[in-house]
């Protein structure tokens, strides 16, 4: 499968196509890596699929956007962490470890997650900053910009996934 291109335009059709490519690619990798049992590890699989979805989204957009950069950074750290996790062979403790390590090695743009902004930001802005990755330290203007791009990509991703689900559900 060809890697997705990085065109400058964010034409929704091209974005969709690219997203589809990338997402399927990631899904394939995911499915090839491990053969999870359907019932027991549904959560993990769904979580992985979700991660794959976000990763594909971020990869398609690239480093142009703050949120994509944040997502990629997060995934990279998570990957590193999961590698460590596998080495440690721990299961339940992983989550705590994951969170703690994640907090320590957290993204420099995300380390203010619990930071309440006294700059007069409304509660809504704070909520938005929590929702959109990578916009913690941005001003209101950039925040809205990133939010718009994030919404666009999210909507496209949702559409792609829905189409896939519909496709697969016909099987």
């Amino acid at each position, binding site marked *: 499968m060809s890697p997705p291109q990085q065109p400058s335009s964010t034409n929704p059709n091209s974005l969709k196509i690219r997203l589809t490519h990338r997402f399927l690619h990631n899904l394939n990798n995911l499915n090839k890596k491990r053969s999870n049992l359907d019932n027991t590890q549904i959560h993990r699989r769904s979580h992985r699929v979700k991660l*794959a979805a976000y990763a594909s989204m971020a990869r398609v957009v690239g480093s142009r956007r703050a949120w994509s950069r944040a997502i990629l950074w997060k995934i990279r750290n998570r990957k590193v962490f999961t590698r460590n996790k596998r080495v440690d062979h721990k299961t339940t403790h992983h989550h705590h470890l994951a969170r703690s390590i994640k907090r320590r090695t957290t993204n420099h743009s995300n380390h203010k997650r619990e930071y309440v902004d006294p700059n007069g930001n409304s509660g809504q802005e704070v909520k938005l900053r929590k929702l959109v990755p990578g916009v913690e330290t941005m001003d209101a203007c950039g925040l809205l910009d990133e939010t718009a791009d994030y919404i666009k990509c999210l909507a496209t991703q949702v559409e792609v996934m829905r*189409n896939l689900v519909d496709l697969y559900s016909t099987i």
Partner: protein
Amino acid sequence: MEKDGFFNNEGNWNSIFGMGMGMEMESQVSELNWDNPMDQSDPFESALSSIVSSPVNSHPGIPNSGGENVVLKELVGRLGIICNSGEISPQSCIGKNNSTNTSCYNTPLNSPPKIHGNSIPRNHQLPPALFPADPGFVERAARLSCFGMKESAFKTAEFPIAIPASDKKLDDSMEESSLSEQISNGETGIKGQITYSNDRKRKAIPKGKGKESQSSTLSAKVNKTVGGPEKEVSDAKRSKLDEERNGIGKEKEEGNQKQTKENAKPEPPKDYIHVRARRGQATDSHSLAERVRREKISERMKFLQDLVPGCNKVTGKAVMLDEIITYVQSLQKQVEFLSMKLATINPRTDMNMEAVLSKDTQASMLNTMNHLDALAQPFYATAHDGPGNPLTAMMHCGPNMKSSQIDGFGEASLFWGNDLQSVVQTGFSQNQGPSFHGTMGTGQMKVEL
């Protein structure tokens, strides 16, 4: 003075009317004599006595001219004072007196020559050289009559002189304002309105003052009188006008604005986007920057309104933000749900990767169900294991039956396991209307076919 010497004989007259009035007395006396030839001696004495005793009262014996003479005597007294100082052209004034009796009548100073003038038409005879000894006096008297007129005319003359000047200035200012109007017409409409108001003010200013020079005053007036919001505009215009005069052209607007910004207020150019202060708004640097920021934010909010469905009627930043937050949350939940679905639905995608990819791209491009119908057939061969079996069985039966989608999905959820069931059902409940219907619609189409 000759007159004095002439009338030294009549001491009382001199004493009454001053030094230079001897001539007048003599004229009056002669007039009296001339008016009343029959009463030469008695009227003379009576006139004298009347003149001496009551210069103001009109003697019944004396005709109207006598009364006039009495009044005129007073005026003569005044005239004497003025005559010494003033110089009057006799001919013109006499002529004036002849022609315009009333106008001369208004000015008391004109009375003495009026004596001559009135006497002239009334008596039908003009003693051309009533005082041949002193034509200078006549001249002075005549001039004095004109002097008053001149004085009055002086005042009136000032206005004609001033008016052209002010008119000229007004015209110039109007010219400039028209020029500025021309310039401003090239600008946006808002600026045109601003210039119009500016022109109104500029016209009022020369009317009020009317004494300043053109270019400097324009800026000066503008700087003085025009308020804050128009200051930048007028400064820009002034600099524009200057440049027009200098003959420098195009692309000076940015420079102008920059210059005016720097001249108007010491604001460091924060952005490289030059902002013009709008009419009626503060030109404080902080407020300008804030306004720029607010405009940016509102622009982005508008863009977001287009992205988020169902936000066209919503106005206001707070409500809009709420909607955006809700939408982002819903999208993220959808991703989660769909990922879960995908995780369960397609354990085996490697077989049909290319086909799925190609078909899915088609589907995503066209988003129609016809292709999926074509796809559905080959997929039936690859049935899912485990939970997929009832699903495939259902799907096989799908084209034949037209069951409600809820039942179909409900069965599928049952087969997918308890964990999934709750999740799926909650996912269904959580799902927004459109997404749910979207899946239902596509599924329904597939089932029917």
